[in-house]
């Protein structure tokens, strides 16, 4: 089986490879070749992630700065027509999903996005497991006859090591056209972010139950005392109480801390998908029936504010107030 891993955003190459590696590992014994296709801007990348099987080739494709998926798609389609691979693998980001779905459509491929695990079930059939029904449960999809287009669910943990490839590195001759006619201008305003959530060992996640930005500010020292990163549920970032890179769940970060305290979060499936790799989970909620308790090892039914403030004091070893 011929596989291609597509890195659509060079800045995220390590994280995207990390997400794809479990899927490639589970079909590794069937792979006859594994190519890496990398879109990049500026200087061509020299080092690439290490994969479960050695790369057969790296293809570097220069593109305009900050391309939209439409700018990559024609190039991708031309390369796919020439490569005739069985499996095209993308990261499960917005743009990765967009490319996988549209390439899948054009290639008439079996397409499945946000895949958590996969395996070959026959000579030419692939089974892919991914969440359905608001991430409450999973479904196993059977994809007949290649080609297949998959995108990978987030896989928390360390990025793979980077190395200079021993395989051939091919450069795509012409860069993709700068800008499609429908796109008059693009302006990019970077957001400072530190990407500490997916690799964090301890996380304190606050939900809508925190009630206000002021309360949230009062709880930041508790996170510091715990040595924990702050995480948030959707309403907390939608209210602007914490920045977007703090969002935990299918739409944000999937985390794998050894200790995770979740307070004032109801615990829907889409949120819990972000903490299911956590080691020890503590839930604090005023509602004894909150679904979050089903995802926790221990739970406290109470107001999160006095509980967390006291916890902060205990960790710091303060005298009782």
């Amino acid at each position: 089986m011929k596989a291609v891993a597509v890195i659509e955003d060079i800045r995220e190459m390590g994280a995207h490879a990390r997400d794809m590696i479990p899927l490639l590992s589970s079909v590794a014994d069937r792979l006859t070749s594994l190519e890496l296709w990398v879109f990049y801007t500026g200087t061509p990348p020299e080092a690439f992630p290490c994969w479960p099987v050695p790369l057969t080739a790296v293809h570097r494709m220069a593109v305009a700065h900050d391309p939209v998926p439409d700018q990559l798609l024609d190039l991708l389609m031309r390369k796919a027509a020439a490569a005739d691979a069985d499996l095209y693998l993308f990261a499960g980001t917005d743009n990765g999903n967009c490319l996988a779905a549209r390439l899948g459509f054009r290639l008439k491929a079996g397409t499945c996005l946000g895949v958590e695990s996969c395996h070959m079930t026959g000579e030419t059939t692939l089974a892919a497991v991914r969440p359905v029904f608001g991430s409450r449960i999973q479904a196993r999809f059977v994809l007949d006859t290649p080609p297949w287009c998959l995108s990978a669910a987030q896989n928390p943990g360390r990025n793979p090591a980077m190395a200079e490839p021993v395989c051939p590195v091919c450069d795509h001759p012409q860069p993709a056209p700068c800008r499609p006619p429908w796109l008059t201008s693009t302006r990019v305003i970077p957001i400072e972010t530190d990407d500490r959530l997916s690799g964090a060992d301890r996380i304190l996640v606050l939900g809508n139950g925190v009630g206000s930005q002021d309360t949230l500010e009062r709880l930041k020292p508790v996170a510091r005392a715990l040595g924990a990163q702050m995480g948030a549920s959707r309403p907390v970032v939608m209210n602007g109480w914490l920045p977007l890179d703090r969002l935990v769940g299918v739409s944000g970060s999937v985390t794998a801390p050894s200790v995770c305290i979740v307070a004032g979060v109801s615990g829907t499936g889409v949120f819990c998908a972000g903490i299911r790799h956590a080691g020890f989970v503590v839930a604090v909620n005023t509602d004894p029936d909150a679904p979050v308790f089903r995802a926790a090892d221990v739970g406290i039914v109470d107001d999160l504010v006095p509980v967390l403030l006291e916890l902060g004091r205990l960790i710091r070893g303060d005298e009782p107030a």
Partner: protein
Amino acid sequence: MNLTVCFKIIPDYEMVPVHRWEVSGLEPLALRFVRQAFNCYEESALEMALALGETGGSARQDSGSPASAVLGENRVARTALTVDDERADLFLRHLLAVGYDRAVRVAPDQDLRFFPGAVARIIAAAVNRFRPQDLVILGPRGGEGDHCQTGPLVAELLGWPCLMGVSGLALTENGLLEVRTITDRAHRIYTVAPPLVLVTGHALDFSCLRVPTLNQKLSARKKPVETLLPADLGLSVGYLAGTDPLPAELILPAPKQTCTRIEGADPREKARNLFDRYLKSRLVS
């Protein structure tokens, strides 16, 4: 500017604990009768479309004023579209009340929750029927199957470009559109010429859909929810014959160990018990 927003109401999954779900074929029986709700990303999409072209820019407005009260050329005609059964009508009425000009439901003759390709074909055919259309707006994920592909597929079928992660929209002079997108790394502002498919993301300015006033509700009763069959859009049963891979089975999660409740006379004692019995040893490193 004519636009269509696609939405699919979903069951409130949390009303029934997963261990009570009983999977029958591809149907978790427990969900058939639970309350339905808008998906929050689609609420953002629906609200964003209402705010587009409203006097005063894209800021949110009093729910009192009709959304279509806009100036001359900037008039925005909004259609809400869902592919669903009659349970969606209540939600379509809500949308008529808050300012959607048309509410359309395509009633499929079979369960399409695991056929994103078929749903996309119906949406594309409906948009072609509603022509001229400039924008189709969808959510990133939903429709119970959580396929994450309906928007991009609609773009392919219409032959239109597609932007993901949309957080805001504004009309510019000369008929162009400003589309804002957001990721945790950057804001991007694109100036684009429609037609276009937009998939919403974290639309921080449009976190929920406005609520209709009583008057709006009453006047919406006079407006029809239009119901179409796939056949009305020229789609035969063959529209299902795509490449949608079918799920072979639904997999319930392994039952999780039960959660131990930490008791105590007051919140502080509970915190102490948590710390002494469970956290102290885990925090030593």
